[in-house]
């Protein structure tokens, strides 16, 4: 196969490219430039976007003996990931830019361009597995299905941020690191091949927020918009620079002048952007067991194949953060009879979740298998 290996300059994507080469594919390395104004050197915990990182990717490609190019996707990145990040925060929601990057950049802009240029697949250094399985539907018919699964590496599992890619794009993706149970094994693979990135530190922060200061980034881009912090009775208990910078469930950074009357910790329970108001309250207000989502994506072999009750519910587990724990739930597609039902509703069947914010992704699992995902629109206690 003709495979485009997305190479960030980090160890994971370098090893993924190496494995694709060793599997006998015709591999070309591509580094995505996501910003026009890039730092010369990598700093702190950003691991992808400096010119030094591009150079690391180039050296890895040299050592693997594959062609290497830099593709400028900075404009698309700004128009999708960064614009979404800003508009979501501005609307009082909590976006996950890594999900949006997988959705719009890696598995759309890059994948579509690669496909148009004649590539069969895009290989990335994500920790997740693609499995081909035979499923038997309620009608007894067997179907060969491509499934997305969690990585055996719990700490690194990235299935949550990949769920957004959906089944059609999964068919053109390769995750060569899917079988690795630890990052140390991947580093060892890099070292064994003499790849100089083997000891490179991991990256954690949002790549386009230079110093990890998300609130500062939002203030720079959206401007300061001072407003009130109120409690659930409407009494003003503090001030803020912009409601957009707050997230439901947040406790730190509220800078409230005086403690609550009952002395208990207060959390952001609502962000009302129409009035530029941040509402704080006790932890129990954050507890929810009903979640609704839109922009639903279902993988193959789920809708119409998984056994449901008469009302369309089926039991599953859901996860609302990249590295959160899954919790038991039942789920159903709204308007399930339509070709591509875009909404889903979820009832938690075990313990409630705390701090579910609109804009987050909710991903449904059956064991290690990803069933589908949606973007949270509402969360409440029933």
């Amino acid at each position: 196969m003709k495979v485009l290996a997305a190479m960030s300059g980090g160890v994971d994507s370098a090893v993924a490219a190496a494995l694709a080469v060793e599997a006998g594919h015709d591999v070309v390395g591509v580094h995505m430039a996501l910003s026009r104004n890039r730092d010369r050197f990598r700093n702190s915990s950003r691991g992808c976007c400096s010119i030094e990182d591009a150079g690391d990717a180039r050296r890895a490609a040299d050592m693997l003996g594959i062609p290497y190019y830099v593709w400028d996707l900075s404009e698309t990145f700004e128009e999708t990931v960064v614009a979404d990040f800003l508009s979501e925060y501005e609307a009082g929601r909590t976006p996950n830019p890594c999900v949006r990057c997988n959705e719009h950049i890696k598995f759309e802009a890059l994948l579509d361009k690669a496909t148009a240029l004649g590539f069969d697949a895009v290989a990335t250094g994500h920790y997740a597995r693609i499995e081909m399985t035979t499923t038997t539907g309620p009608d007894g018919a067997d179907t060969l299905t491509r499934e997305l699964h969690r990585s055996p590496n719990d700490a690194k599992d990235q299935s949550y941020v990949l769920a957004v890619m959906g089944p059609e794009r999964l068919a053109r993706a390769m995750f060569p690191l899917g079988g690795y149970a630890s990052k140390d094994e991947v580093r060892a693979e890099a070292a064994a091949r003499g790849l100089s990135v083997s000891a490179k530190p991991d990256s954690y922060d949002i790549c386009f927020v230079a110093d990890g200061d998300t609130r500062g980034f939002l203030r720079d881009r959206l401007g300061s918009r001072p407003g009130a912090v109120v409690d659930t009775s409407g009494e003003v208990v503090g001030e803020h620079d912009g409601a957009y910078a707050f997230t439901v469930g947040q406790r730190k950074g509220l800078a409230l002048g005086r403690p609550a009357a009952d002395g208990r910790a207060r959390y952001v329970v609502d962000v009302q952007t129409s009035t530029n108001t941040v509402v704080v309250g006790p932890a129990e207000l954050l507890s929810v067991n009903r979640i609704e989502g839109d922009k639903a994506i279902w993988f193959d072999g789920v809708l119409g194949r998984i056994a449901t009750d008469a009302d369309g519910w089926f039991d599953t587990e859901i996860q609302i953060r990249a590295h959160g724990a899954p919790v038991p739930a039942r789920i159903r597609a709204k308007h399930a009879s339509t070709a591509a039902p875009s909404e889903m509703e979820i009832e938690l069947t075990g313990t409630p979740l705390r701090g579910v914010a609109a804009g987050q992704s909710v991903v449904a699992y059956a064991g290690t298998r990803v069933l589908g995902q949606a973007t949270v629109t509402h969360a409440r206690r029933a």
Partner: protein
Amino acid sequence: MDVTASLAESAGAPAPSPDTGAYLDHAATTPMTSAALAAFAEHARHTGNASSLHSAGRAARRTVEESREVVARSLGARPSEVIFTAGGTEADNLAIKGIFWGRRAQDKRRTRILVSAVEHHAVLDPAFWLAGHAGAQVVLLPVDAEGRVDVDTLRAELADHPQDTALVSVMWANNEVGTIQPVRDVVRAARPYGIPVHVDAVQAVGQLEVDFAASGADALTVSGHKLGGPAGVGALLARRDLPLDAVLHGGGQERGVRSGTLDVPAIAAFAVAVRDAVAGRAAYAARVAALRDGLIERVHDAAPDAVLCGPDPRTDPELRLPANAHFAFPGAEGDSLLYLLDSAGVQASTGSACQAGIPQPSHVLLAMGVAEDAARGALRFSLGPTSTADDVDRLIAALPQVVERAQAAGLAGTNRGARKTAEHGPANDGLVPRPSPSTHPSSPPAVHSDGSSSSATGDGLVPRPSPSARPSSSSKEHPA
């Protein structure tokens, strides 16, 4: 002359090299000639610092001075006018900074630097660096749709600022689109004011007749690796009475303006390459032009919507470098074209400046009035002494599918960018050359380092509407 034969038979035949596919990027760098390589190897065997006084030093010095005489004779200069540098970029930096500082030391009012908007970054960036660090004002002289600098604007700027202009720098021929500049007119415009003119002739030497004395220029840049010599060596030809301060300080070599131990083998090889390139120029230029004209014709056949950028050599052969062809492929992105051609064994270039491998929309094309989206899909094909008809055949064989695929890839982006299209108009709005001065009743405004145009600042030029949004993009491209 049979253009299907290899061009390698001219004086200064290139050294044999392994097959690298169809190499159509000679303007980036071209193979060293066998003679230059032999001279390099010969002199690399000998020890001797050309500044030393003993016999080994004298031998090295003799090689340097003989090389200086060869370069001078080949380029119509006096030996004392040749300053060896470590390449074209250093020579351009020395010219821009050295003349600016030298002129300002004579008269502190002289702070204006007039450069064409299509100069190489080795000229533009030092000029804008001086604007940011040394109080210079940079005036970008506009060009027409074919990339030729507007001499009327230059005349007007000089007439308005006879006392406070430090220097003028206009290249002999453009590295991207091959446009030959009216150097003679530039020099004539500046001479009455006694304002020195620097000419970057990196792309011209070996393709065009370059005579320093006859040109009337005060300083002229030459580079080794564009004409069969090694990379990392070049020269600034500078008149002896030119105010020129040093950029590199140290041992005082090269008239005291370019310190540093002389690189004897590189200088010897450079001199051989210059000599042979100049001696074989007329025959080489004729053969390569014929090959290039065939390439242009066949690209138009193979990719009917390709747009030739720069002067059309079929009608104006004297306005374009003979080895240069440059096309925009509407709807395709340069990086897609480059990748697909490279996969097919054809090596070309987007021709514009890169930052860590990212092709930026070319400031040259933008200055010519090409729309930014169209400028992204541009490729330069530059021929050289080793180019053959086979190379062109390989390009033409690959091109139809390459362009089709690259356009499909561009379309994938356009469909996705529906929102962008709605906000900013069509994603690919094709080539929209700005009106050229020749078809325009009045000259376009110059652009100044503060981002303003002459018409906006009202500093003496007749206010005229700007025909495009280019001024702001130009100043963004080169932040002062």
